[in-house]
């Protein structure tokens, strides 16, 4: 056991990549299936980016569905009107998502606490409502943006099944690598300082606003890539992608997994989607009730989420304290 943990500590990225890349082999054994594996990767990426904002700076955004959704629509519209090549579509989508985040981040990050949360929520719901009615002509409204008989491809290779899975997995591993680098960088340290004491940081003459905006935009870029991949994976854009419940799910995942740990939100995303689509079947109509109870139990007894739970179990198993925090 100790041996396993020491490997985990020494080669976190390698272990992470191995777990992800071998998913097609082990996931079916626990009732998983291809489509779900890909969707988990996408949401994991979304949650991972969100952790750079929530986990590092402590800013709770209730509007990250904006970037996921806007980028999904951009991708869908590119497929519809331009070509089924994913590279231009994804580039445009990420640019659109990033621009949206710069504007919204600039306007909302001056506020903090609940005011920031509510402002992002309000922006999100505004866009969601407009997608349903005002822009219904572009978005397909409630029916969603449908792309009949179209298979997205990269340089002529059709993006589906295994190819799509490995592409998404590669993006997630890269995303995880970058997030870890950010976490260890001076930039990451300043972000974490914002969470612990923003005022003190301001006295040192650091332009906190700029750093917050940086974190916000980076997390939005992750969200945009995820949103775009979602449409590559399934050529369909639903208005729910923009809805507050998408942002809400993201928050739930992050908290269940463990905020601020990078790996936590990924585990949270995997757990929630797995629960929703596999464990929910034997539970029937009551699955949401059970999920709500699990969620409450985690917030009450395990504020650090699953990652904290693992640490506790580890501590019990080897009978001593794990040495310090993980990197």
């Amino acid at each position, binding site marked *: 056991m100790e041996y396993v943990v020491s490997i985990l500590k020494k080669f976190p990225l390698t272990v992470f990549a191995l777990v992800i890349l071998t998913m*097609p082999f082990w996931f079916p054994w626990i009732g998983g*299936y*291809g489509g779900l594996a890909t969707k988990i990767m996408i949401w994991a990426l979304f949650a991972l980016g969100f952790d750079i904002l929530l986990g590092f700076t402590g800013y709770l955004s209730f509007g990250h569905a904006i970037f996921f959704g806007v980028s999904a629509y951009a991708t869908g519209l590119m497929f519809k009107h331009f070509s089924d090549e994913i590279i231009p579509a994804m580039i445009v989508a990420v640019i659109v998502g990033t621009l949206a985040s710069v504007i919204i981040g600039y306007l909302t990050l001056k506020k903090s606490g609940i005011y920031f949360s509510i402002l992002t929520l309000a922006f999100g719901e505004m866009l969601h409502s407009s997608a349903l009615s005002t822009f219904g002509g572009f978005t397909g409204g409630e*029916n969603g943006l449908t792309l*009949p*008989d179209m298979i997205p491809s990269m340089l002529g290779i059709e993006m589906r099944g*295994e190819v799509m899975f490995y592409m998404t997995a590669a993006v997630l591993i890269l995303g995880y690598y970058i997030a870890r680098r950010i976490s260890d960088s001076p930039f990451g340290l300043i972000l974490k300082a914002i969470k612990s004491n923003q005022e003190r940081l301001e006295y040192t003459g650091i332009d906190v606003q700029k750093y917050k905006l940086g974190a916000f935009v980076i997390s939005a870029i992750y969200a945009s890539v995820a949103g775009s991949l979602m449409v590559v994976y*399934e050529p369909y854009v639903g208005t729910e992608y923009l809805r507050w419940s998408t942002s809400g799910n993201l928050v739930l995942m992050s908290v269940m997994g463990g905020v601020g740990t990078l790996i936590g939100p990924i585990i949270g995303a995997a757990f929630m989607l797995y629960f929703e689509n596999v464990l929910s079947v034997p539970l029937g109509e009551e699955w949401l009730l059970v999920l709500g109870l699990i969620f409450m139990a985690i917030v009450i007894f395990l504020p650090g989420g699953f990652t904290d739970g693992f640490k*506790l179990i580890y501590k019990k198993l080897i009978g001593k304290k794990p040495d310090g925090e993980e990197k």
Partner: protein
Amino acid sequence: MAKKSDISKTISRRSILKAGALGSVAMSAPMFYAKNAWAESAIGNYPIEGDTVMLGFNVPQTGAYADEGADELRAYKLAVTHLNNGGGMLDTFKPSKLTGSGILGKKVDYVVGDTQTKADAARTSARRMIERDKIIMLTGGSSSGIAIAQQYLASEMGIIFMAGLTHSNDTTGKDKRRYGFRHFFNAEMTGIALSPILAETYGKERRAFHLTADYSWGHTQYDAMKRGTEAQGWTTVNNLMTPVGAPDFSQYLTEVLSSDADILVLNHYGKDMVNSLSQAVEFGMRELQKNGKTMEIVVPLFSRLMAQGAGSSKIQGVLGTTNWNWSLQDEGSQAFVKAFEAEYGFPPSMAAHTCYCQTLLYANACEVAGTFYPPEVIKALEGFEFDGMGNGKTLYRAEDHQCFKDILVVKGKSPADKTGEFDLLELVGTTPRETVTYDASIFGGELGPYEPA
């Protein structure tokens, strides 16, 4: 926490297993992505291995339409029982090749998914059933947006989708798909069937104000009702779009009150309709005198579940259309209602009926085609004409996969007239199939190929 340690145990056990059984693991990998395993004649989950055939029932178990979903699921389970053991409409449905001993000699089994009344969730659970549970046919849905989202997915994956309750023109109109079929009627038919009876009951000199749920179904419903009633000489005063799921409609009703309209048309469904109707009644709109006439409320799409939610004091005398009602006296309806009541103790809803019929229709098409091979099954359904399922002679039109049948116009019963808790709707007329048949090309859309890309 206990769960987590269990998982870590099994994982370590598995990693040992894995080392020992690398060969078999490598074998299982291609199965993970069924699509890559397609041979030339294989489409979706065809060919079926083993001696059971798996159907996927994707119904809302959580969210706004959970009650409809629960009733749909009851009907699906009943259909599976009847397919395997005979009974129900198997005795009345004709021409039928159903034997009561499964489909093509295979025993029928099913899996259930929760659409959560959300399109994205519906697609994910449909994928689970297609990829993991290897269903040959997908069915369900209680909202048009969700049905359309699933219909596209099913078509891409080569799985036949038998739509449940969806009333938007789009499902078999601009979003029609080769792999999607709808037994339920649609907004266009409601417009054609209801308008003449409205004109007959309330007169030709009427001014209508519409409140419309702001999504695709609402839009098509408004459009169809506007055309239908204007052809009868009515004037459309105004239409206001209302957000889906609004708890309060007072601001729109205020506009209606301030207008010179003497008819209020509520293009709402489910809770929206229950809410808007209850509130319109509350605002006194059924007693009001406008232009020398009593103001009336019209609910184009009516269902027994909605009538129950609103209460009979509010729906009495309100006109609308419905796909089917349990009180129908024909053989097919009676057989279904009897079986359903014997199993569950209360009568089925129209959502249950359409889902039950869809399952039988699919099964029969397989028997007719003599194979589960989707293109052949589709051809067997296209242009299929049948009877004995509670709607009289019905045609599955080949051009758009829409069923054409007589449309029922109903009216809410008053509290005094009803004989029981579920006796809420009274039949006032039937508009014949020929009248409601419209040109298949008016909504555009393409069915697409028999074999998916």
